């Protein structure tokens, strides 16, 4: 059996990962857990980019992945800074405690 993975295999995996990420963002109440689920969704999109890039023999998709990773790193730095400030002000990481977006 010499079966090579098809393009839609990768897309299916990416869709599954993205859906898991969306479910996590919706059902989680811990800010850090929601943050990690967002990272999961970004990775699912990255997998789509790389799969298309590989199957279409075009390097542009991998460049987009590069930029997405940069944005994810910036988002991690700023997002975790915001999380630390929320924790300092409220002594809690539950999003329900920060639902009115003010002190």
């Amino acid at each position, binding site marked *: 059996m010499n079966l090579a993975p098809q393009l839609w295999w990768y*897309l299916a995996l990416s869709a599954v990962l993205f859906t898991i990420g*969306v479910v996590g963002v919706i059902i989680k109440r811990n800010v850090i857990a929601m943050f*990690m689920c967002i990272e*999961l969704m970004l990775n699912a999109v990255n997998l789509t980019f790389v799969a298309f890039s590989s199957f279409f023999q075009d390097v542009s998709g991998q*460049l987009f992945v590069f930029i997405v*990773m940069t944005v994810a790193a*910036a988002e991690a730095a*700023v997002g975790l800074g915001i999380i630390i400030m929320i924790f300092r002000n409220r002594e809690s*990481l539950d999003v329900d405690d920060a639902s009115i977006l003010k002190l």
Partner: protein
Amino acid sequence: MLALLFIIFAGLAVGCAVAVVAQRNPLYSAVSLIGVFVALACLYVMLAAPFIAAVQVIVYAGAIMVLVVFVIMLLNVEEEERRRPRLRFLVPTAVVMAAILVAETSFIMYSVRFSPFTPTDNISNTGITSQIGTGLFTRYLLPFEITSILLLMAIVGAMTLARRSLRLSPTARILPGAQVLARDVLTRGSPEDLTAIEADSSVEAARVLGVEPPIKREDLE
């Protein structure tokens, strides 16, 4: 063979992703997320994208997850307690929207299923580092430069957010090192005394130690 590898790594990725959502302790979620990242890096290698795979491990599994784990440790996160979910009436809506999402993605998969494209083999040039560098510095030069500005803004923003305010409250007192002393040092004479010492404030620590009352901050200035 490739199909077997794909199934192994895809199963690892999906299993770890489910674990990310299912775990209640954020630290376990973080470790599972590292598993997802590593499995995806293996898939990138299978897709003949070695540079992206390396960057995935270095940036995601390395830098970003270190940052996340550091924040988890810093904030002393407790496990999520089970609370009655609010907004219960939104559950049917969520189910419907998840069904729509699945339908959309399966339509896309159906569309590309019969595409004639073949994957890049490992001999071809697509995906090697020099090609990515050429693309970044010629056709995608402007996004690349904008990325650097974005990173600069992120650095400044993160420092501004996480900086502790320099104005302490008037009641803040400082006794250097007093609160980090172990209990054995504090109560050397009574080893059978196992009650925890409340050293929440500098005053209590000073009382336990029998030293001078703590110095006020304004005296230092």
